[in-house]
Structure formats: structure tokens, C-alpha cells
């Protein structure tokens, strides 16, 4: 079931956040975490045999899946994009200042 797969994705992202030393890999892990979370929120609103929540000539509103989680995930995706952009810039700054992307190497160089 997809909600279990989404939880597995969240845990994978968390594991990579905990174990890696490389800042870019951390950002990738954060993105995996976020994709899992978005997927999980969407699965909350799923109904078996439900259809896309868009009214057309051939369907009616009684068959719709829950549109509220989808609207919330739209917000979440945009915020994730902003977070990734700022995180990449900070990583670039760290690389420029310390010459490395590895956080354990930065540790000794702080004055």
C-alpha cells in the first residue's frame, strides 16, 4: 500500500540526514523526506474508485477523492522548493568559505 511506501520514504530520508556528512547529500535527503511526506498526505485523502477532483461533463462530485490534502500539498511543494533553493545557496557559501562540503571537516576550522 502506498501510505506504507510513503512512510518508508520518510524514514529513508531521515536516515540519510542522520548519517551523511556531505551537505549536498543532506539536501537530497531532505528532499526525499519531503516527497515521502507529501505522498503520505495525499494518500490520506484517497478513496478506492475515487476520481480526480475536477468536475467535467462525465462525472459528478460524489466520486471525488478528498481535494483538501492535495491543496495542502501544493503549498508544501512550493515551500519545499524555497527551502531547497536557500539550502543550496548556503551550501555554496560554506564551500566558498571553508573549501569543503563535509561538515566534519568544517568543525576544526571554525575560529
Amino acid at each position, binding site marked *: *500500500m502506498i501510505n*506504507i511506501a510513503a512512510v518508508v520514504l520518510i524514514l529513508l530520508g531521515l536516515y540519510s540526514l542522520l548519517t551523511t556528512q556531505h551537505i549536498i547529500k543532506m539536501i537530497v535527503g531532505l528532499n526525499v523526506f519531503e516527497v515521502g511526506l507529501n505522498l503520505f498526505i495525499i494518500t*490520506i485523502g484517497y478513496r478506492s474508485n475515487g476520481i480526480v*477532483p*475536477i468536475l467535467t461533463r462525465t462525472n*459528478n462530485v460524489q466520486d*471525488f477523492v478528498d481535494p*483538501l490534502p492535495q491543496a495542502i500539498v501544493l503549498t508544501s511543494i512550493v515551500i519545499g*522548493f524555497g527551502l531547497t533553493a536557500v539550502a543550496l*545557496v548556503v551550501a555554496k557559501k560554506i564551500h566558498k568559505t571553508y573549501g569543503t562540503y563535509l561538515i566534519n571537516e568544517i568543525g576544526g576550522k571554525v575560529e
Partner: protein
Amino acid sequence: MKNILALLLIAVLAFLTMTYVVDNNLIPEYGEARLDQTVSGAYVTQSVTEKNNDVSFGRSDNLETGSANAVTSIVLEYRAFDTLGEVTVLFIAALGVSLLLGSSENFAKRPKSGFILKVGSKIILPIVIIVGVYIITHGHLSPGGGFQGGAMIAAALLLMAISDPQFIPSIKQFKLLEGLSGTIFIILGLVGISVSGYFLSNYMDTGIIGTLTSAGIIPILYMFIGLKVGSELISIITDFLREEAECD
């Protein structure tokens, strides 16, 4: 050692989340969401303020939002204030990127693009822009909307920057466009206070559901959101192009 500790922590978390997900009364089982028991049922039938049982494509008129796309009617009508916050977050992200990267006017020398990229981008660029505009203007009828269409238009500009090494987006004009469309969004919301008493209300005629001119204020708001998101993404892209120069 650290990896084993992390693995142990993840295992504990996995156990906790699985018990939470699999057997819980607060969130429905997979595939068994009940719309009539939550607020989503009222969102879908557009009966939040007054009961309304008949929503049929091309016939019902004067609905609460009049948007055929239920996600759009939530994003820009019932939770439009959230969307204002979301656009603000994106604005702050763009601001943070441009502040952190400095304001150097030098751009990196990008490598010459190949023949396929040059010719292919000329063919698909107009299509990408037209589809982006279509997605923005049909946000209340079909999948998509201002955020998605704005991202497509920004992607078109990124394609231009990749295919033509001399091309640099004029960032000042995009910043002006962004500020202007954000201001118009808020002004349109404030007009709602004077017309019907609350912020970002749908004070225009919602029309017949399913037609292009339906949904009142929603297509207009989505147009400005599309412009704002597109110009914000373009300014982020331009900042990243500029940063390459400082590393050389």
C-alpha cells in the same frame, strides 16, 4: 557506530509510525476517506455557507466558487489566505537567495551550446510558454494553475539561458513585475473587505460552472500568482547564473 545508532533510531521510529498509520481512528485507512464526514465534503459540493446539493457541469450557476477544479476552489477561495502566505514564503526564499549570493553584475561565461540544443530549444520554447499561459488561465477548469504555469514559464527562460550563452534575463524588470503582481493580489483581496466584508472574498459573479469566464475572481488571482511565481523563479535562476561568476 553512528550508523548503527541511526539505524536503531529509525527502527524505533518505523515501529511507532507504522502502528500510528495502520490502526488509527484519527486518519482514515488507505482508500477509505469519507468526504461527507469532513469539511472536504462541503468544499466539494461548494456548500460551506449554505447548503447546496446540485453541482452539475455546465448547468449550475451562482455557486460559492464556481470553479470546476475543487483543488483550485480550496487554494484560492476557502484557503486563499494560506496562498497569500505561501506566495510570501516564496518571495522570502527569492530574497534570501539574492541576498546571500550578493549583487555582482558579472555573469559566468557559459559553455557554447550544441546544435541540437540550439535548434530544439527554438522549436519547443514557444510551445512551453503557450502551455504555461494555458495552464495559468485554465487553473479553475483543468489541472494546474498559477504555480504550475509560472514554473513552466520560468523553465522556458532557463531553457533560453542554457541554449544561448549570451542571454541574461533582465532581473530588474522581473523584480518590478513580481512586486506589482503581489501588490495587485493584495489590493484585489482588500476590495473584498469593502464589497462583501471579508478579505479575498469572491465578490464577482461566479457564472456557470465549467465555462472559461466562471469562478469570478479566481482566474484573475491565479493570473497574478502565475506572474509573481514565474518572475520569482526567474530571479532565483538568474541569481544562480550570476553566482557562477564569483567562483571563477
